[in-house]
């Protein structure tokens, strides 16, 4: 780790998407008009797929190295050198970041390809691909940045692209409002993130190592143990808590999760790429990246795991009653992100990152399948107006179903391998309540996912006859992507089998050099390692999944149970809570938005009456002053000027008589003058 392999290949992974974005933004409109959308597709997808190819190449280059030497550094230039802080624009590639890079460019590339069909009728085709490329660039900067500030640049960059893409169809006020909400809620988290960076720098500076380069932070982090931070917390706890607050914003965890469901206003490929597969996992990535800090702060770990578990369960219960096909998936994403946070929160970093990867596969597949349905129904997103689509869209159905099995955690699909590991590790580290929440959440997940499948693909078609007539299977590019992602969702889990099935976990071993700080090792060792108990708990999880599936099957396919009757349970309290998303939006509106608006109104009143009053008074004073100055000007100054001119005119009128035109007269005048002069001189002489 002391001597990373230096390379100048990694920069191209980052720069190619930037180049694609630059060309699309600067010349996209012209290219599209002159050569058609095919050129834009080629540019947009090409940039990301080329980056993916380079990433694959570097992966193999990395695999050729010894496991403990798998670090690559691509140092471009000195960024700034202020005080003791020296930062470079440098990209740091290690097993964790290469996994993220492959997800971003791989799944991202597939979604780019999907978009060529999905967005085909949009006039701003070039703008869409420009933003998509720019997002890929920002996400890669976030993942590859070798210091926390560069990471923060990417962190902000993905937020900006998310904002722009949620409001992509900006002529509709709902979309732009959703974009604003996402941006503003993220900003709250970002503030905490910045505070954490400053605190970390101050803390490391106090122990003599002022640095923000992540690998150096990792080396000097043990020196922070016992250092006092702020708000009465130890330094490490404060920093990690603040960073986690930043992560709740970006990764849509309670209490900052409210923006993600609204973000579904964006085009569906955007929902799949940014709001499911990549950007929202940035928080999980950040915790895993800084595992050496988190492992030193057990209190923060507990907060992370608790928030994750609460989010996982509560978001899942909200997903049960939503009727918008994309909103169900949005809550499912929030819930699954909760699982990831539990994973990293209990110290099972590899399991958290593994779930991040499998989630990227199956959630992208689910979103793109939903996009295919929406596309086929001409923009319809309400599941109550769908049904029976499996006959007309068999390919979409099969891929969607495979991804559903994956997310529910049915073996051997990818979700089983990753999610079950997290659930087990939650128990293994002694968090029984967290385990119970995750276990119940798994059952609820199975229920709402199969509810979605049955409402969308089974039963009778409930839309309009025109829609029924118009329904068609996904076009070729979309179909290709769906199949690719479904295959990944199916077999992706075999990279890391649960310990009780077989001791086969190359994924975990690959990531091991990243999670090798003393503190992290200690946390990992503190958990239970009991194969037979693990098997039992996997069985319990499957039981919950089976119960959820069965309930959904009885209710929405066979119709044995009545959903309406179920919603009346306990006087409809639970139904209303779930359907109303626990009234959190309303709570924020009343608790923060309303006082804020009042404050804004008061400020507006102050501005309108006090500030404007002062300004208006100053203005009227100026008017009076100007009036006085006007008087002075017209009577005194003008008077003088007019007097001069009148005097000159009068004198001229008299004097012009002298100009007689008679030459003799002039000559007499000259003679007389000469004689006068002589006379005067003569008298003066005497």
């Amino acid at each position, binding site marked *: 780790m002391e001597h990373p392999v230096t390379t100048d290949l990694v920069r191209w992974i980052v720069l190619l998407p930037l180049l694609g974005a630059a060309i699309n933004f600067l010349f996209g409109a012209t290219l599209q008009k002159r050569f058609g959308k095919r050129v834009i597709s080629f540019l947009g997808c090409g940039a990301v797929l080329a980056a993916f190819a380079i990433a694959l190449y570097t992966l193999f280059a990395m695999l050729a190295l010894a496991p403990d030497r798998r670090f690559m550094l691509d140092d471009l230039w000195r960024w700034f050198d202020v005080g003791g802080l020296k930062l470079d624009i440098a990209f740091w590639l290690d097993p964790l970041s290469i996994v993220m890079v492959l997800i971003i460019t791989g799944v991202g590339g597939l979604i780019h390809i999907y978009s060529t069909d999905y967005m085909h009728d949009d006039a701003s085709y070039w703008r869409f691909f420009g933003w998509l490329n720019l997002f890929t660039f920002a996400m890669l900067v976030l993942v590859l940045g070798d210091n926390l500030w560069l990471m923060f640049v990417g962190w902000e960059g993905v937020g900006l692209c998310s904002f722009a893409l949620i409001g992509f169809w900006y002529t509709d006020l709902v979309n732009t409002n959703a974009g604003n909400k996402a941006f503003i809620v993220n900003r709250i988290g970002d503030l905490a993130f910045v505070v954490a960076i400053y605190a970390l720098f101050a803390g490391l500076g106090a122990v003599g190592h002022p640095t923000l380069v992540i690998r150096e932070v990792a080396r000097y982090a043990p020196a922070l143990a016992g250092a006092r931070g702020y708000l009465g917390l130890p330094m490490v706890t404060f920093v990690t808590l603040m960073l986690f607050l930043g992560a709740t914003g970006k990764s849509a965890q309670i209490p900052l999760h409210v923006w993600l469901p609204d973000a579904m206003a964006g085009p569906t490929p955007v929902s799949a790429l940014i709001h499911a597969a990549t950007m929202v996992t940035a928080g999980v990535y950040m915790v895993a990246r800084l595992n050496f800090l988190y492992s030193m702060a057990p209190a923060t770990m507990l907060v992370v795991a608790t928030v994750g578990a609460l989010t996982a369960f509560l978001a899942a219960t909200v997903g049960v009653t939503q009727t918008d096909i994309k909103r169900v998936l949005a809550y499912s994403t929030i819930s699954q992100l909760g699982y990831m946070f539990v994973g990293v929160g209990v110290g099972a970093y590899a399991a958290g990152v593994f779930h991040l990867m499998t989630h990227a596969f199956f959630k992208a597949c689910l979103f793109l399948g939903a996009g295919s349905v929406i596309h086929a129904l001409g923009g319809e997103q309400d599941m109550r107006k769908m049904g029976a689509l499996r006959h007309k869209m068999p390919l979409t159905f099969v891929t969607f179903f495979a991804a559903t099995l994956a997310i529910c955690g049915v073996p051997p699909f990818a979700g089983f391998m990753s999610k079950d590991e997290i659930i087990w590790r939650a128990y293994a580290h002694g968090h029984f309540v967290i385990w119970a929440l995750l276990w119940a959440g798994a059952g609820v997940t199975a229920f709402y996912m199969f509810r979605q499948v049955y409402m969308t693909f089974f039963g009778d078609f409930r839309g309009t006859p025109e829609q029924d007539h118009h329904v068609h299977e996904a076009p070729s590019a979309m179909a290709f992507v769906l199949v690719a992602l479904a295959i990944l969702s199916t077999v992706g889990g075999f990279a890391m089998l649960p310990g009780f099935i077989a001791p086969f976990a190359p994924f975990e071993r690959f990531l091991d050099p990243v999670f090798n700080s003393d503190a992290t090792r200690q946390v990992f060792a503190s958990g239970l390692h009991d194969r037979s108990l693990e098997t039992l708990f996997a069985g319990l999880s499957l039981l919950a999944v089976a119960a959820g599936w069965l309930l959904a099957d009885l209710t929405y396919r066979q119709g044995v149970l009545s959903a309406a009757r179920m919603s009346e349970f306990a006087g409809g309290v639970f139904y209303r809570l779930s359907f109303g998303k626990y009234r959190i939006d309303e709570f924020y509106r009343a608790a923060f938005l309303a006082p804020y608006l009042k404050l804004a109104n008061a400020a507006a009143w102050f501005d309108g009456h006090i500030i404007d009053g002062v300004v208006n008074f100053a203005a009227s004073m100026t008017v009076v002053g100007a009036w006085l100055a006007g008087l002075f000007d017209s009577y005194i100054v003008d008077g003088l000027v007019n007097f001069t001119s009148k005097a000159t005119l009068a004198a001229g009128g008299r004097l012009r*008589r*002298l100009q*007689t*035109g008679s*030459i*003799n007269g002039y000559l007499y005048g000259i003679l007389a003058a000469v004689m006068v002069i002589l006379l005067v001189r003569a008298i003066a002489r005497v």
Partner: protein
Amino acid sequence: MVNGLTLNDFLILGLAVFLLGVYCVLTRRNAIGILMGIELILNAANINYIAFSFFGGGGANYDGQVFAIFVIMLAAAEAVIGLAIILAIYQNLRTIDVGAAETLSG
């Protein structure tokens, strides 16, 4: 003294010519007459230059005589311009009576 003539005799001659010139200039209404009067005034000045040069400086001082030559040259130039003006007046007014040229009267 030259042939019994002293400096005073020349100065009196110069004064006489000068006064004749002034009288001519003042009384003539004919422009050419006025011009001739001016010539007389200039030549009166010349007489004075020469006289002073001859009787005054002593030795080889010819300043006055050089000045006389300059004045003659000046008179020639002045006559050219004066006659050109008179010609222009004649062309416009069909007369050279200076009393007629009073359009600049205030």
